[in-house]
């Protein structure tokens, strides 16, 4: 077994426990050879601490609520780990999508293809170029 596995942190910014989407995405990423660290519903502090301590290559946020909560998490991660890529999915209405994209976050709204999400993870972690 080689040792080049990339590590992805998956967190939910809201206190909403819908697990359909995140579970399917996490499974797809695992099946594509990623090590996925799942921390469930996590506060901004939890997300930042995990991003640092776990030394992940990518952070995935499941967003399900007010966009400001997600933006706070994104800003804090970018401050603690400059240059660390992020992507996001979940209930992200158009206005929120634009705000996230402006921060360099790739966004996958409901209905996105898993293949596109995996492709993005590979590109963002430089597993493919």
């Amino acid at each position: 077994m080689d040792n080049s596995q990339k590590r992805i942190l998956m967190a939910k910014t809201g206190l909403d426990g819908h697990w359909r989407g995140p579970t399917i995405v996490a499974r797809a990423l695992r099946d594509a050879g990623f090590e996925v660290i799942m921390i469930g519903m996590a506060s901004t502090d939890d997300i930042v601490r995990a991003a640092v301590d776990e030394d992940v290559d990518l952070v995935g946020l499941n967003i399900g609520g007010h966009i400001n909560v997600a933006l706070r998490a994104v800003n804090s991660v970018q401050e603690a780990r400059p240059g660390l890529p992020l992507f996001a999915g979940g209930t992200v209405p158009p206005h929120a999508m634009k705000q996230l994209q402006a921060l360099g976050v790739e966004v996958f709204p409901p209905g996105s293809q898993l293949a596109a999400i995996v492709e993005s993870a590979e590109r963002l972690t430089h597993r493919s170029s």
Partner: protein
Amino acid sequence: MGTKPVLSSSEIELKAYYTAEDIPEPHRSRVNLPPGEAPYHRGFHSSGYRTKPWRIFQLSGFGKPEDENERIKFLLKNGETGFIMEHDRNTADHCYNVDHPDVVSRREDVGLTGAVMQSVRDIDICLDGLPMDTSFAHAGGAVVQHAPFALAGYWTVAKRRGFDLRKLAGTGQSDFNLTYLGCVTKQQIPTDAGLRFNADIIEFCTENLPRWVPVSVAGYNGADSGLTPDQELGSLFANTVEYLDEIKRRNKIPLEVAAKGCGGVSFRSSIHIFEEAAKMRAARLMWSDLLRERYDITEPKTANLRIHCVTAGSKMTYQQPLNNIVRGTVMALTAVLGGVQSLGVSGYDEALSIPSEHAHQMSVRIQQILQEETNICAVTDPLGGSYYIETLTAQLVEKAWQFFEDIMQEGGYLACLDSGWLHAKAAENQHKEFMAMESGEQNIVGVTFAEDDESPYEVDGFMGTDDAFDVATARLNELRRTRHETGAKAALKNLESVCRSESNIMPAMLAALDAEVTLGEIGDVYREVFGDWNTPIQT
């Protein structure tokens, strides 16, 4: 055409057409039974919607209690015939006050999914001017650990307004599927404590609120997590059996009365029209069989299964959201063809946010058009006698009982939640469903197919109000300053000792609400006394 079999969502193989010979016995001999006769698959009343159209019952709520009050009044004015109080899920589902660190760190989320109600004062504001004495109300408390608080709050306000609890009609749901299967919270009481709460509520209502539906087992949240229609049916009745067996074990109230209380259930109405309509018919039949065979109950009024239905939120698409008005209509029609008693239609903006006022109005309008213009209320069980529908009904009943038996083999419904067995079933189906979409086997219009047309209307997510957190914080502080502290502390202490005993929790809960004890304080007692459920899945 290839030879690949065509399957329903319950994986029943479908024929190209059906004849009378396809209907299996013993169902074939029941086809000609009229509605109003056991086993009631054709409906409980022969006159159906002629005498009583279904109740238009929409989930509603956001922001401050006064915002929610305004939205409920708007819906009632627009033709809703019952009302639902939705509590803010950040606080309610977890029994946290707004100053809990997990809530503070997400303060903008507060009020997005319902009004923040931390004490009886908030509930009073939310109910201002609402017809509590004449309307069927959903008092909130969809979540098991939150139900005693929400119900006690509603009843306390009713008592203060001089209404007789014995005449009050409504429900509180208190449903396991919602947070133990569908939408798993960060912290909640273990399932055995939840079962105790629900049995307490059933007993309390039996003695004090005979018109109240104490609990409402909701297949919806199982189905929208991935359970197929047969599994939704099987798990729903396995859940009901937990309640009835517990009531029987306690032996404090007549089982028939408890069974009547458990006979108000909710299902998801999804997009496969005929299978979903057959599911409602199968549910009535199964309820009647279950009562007779397992509990020896044949009393017709008890065997009357009342079905509330919500259209499948997960079928609503993010892309081209106006298409969802059509999806909502189809799923609403499906439920009505199945003969449900009450219906909520998901907003067309479901995949984007909570419903906007316009989306809410459309959900009501869909139902009004069906009721007023289509003449659908004229004939009971309009699908009855269709070779296809009758065959599907019989096949669903059989598959559902099989799933029920599987659950029993695994130790029962609650054991299947504790072990993650049901979650695994749901996840397996989700995965299949997703892969069918991914591979192009299942097209979704506007998402994987016909993606190119431009919607002329920009639909964006509705974000409610932005002062819910601040106002809730101010009110919490105000309450702490002005309530009778000694009384509140004593009521809370009493609640804690009742929690530790085997007594019914509801009298102490009513006293606590009356003494202005807050939601978060009650949650702290739960966490101290009952601990935390050991979530079997990675969320």
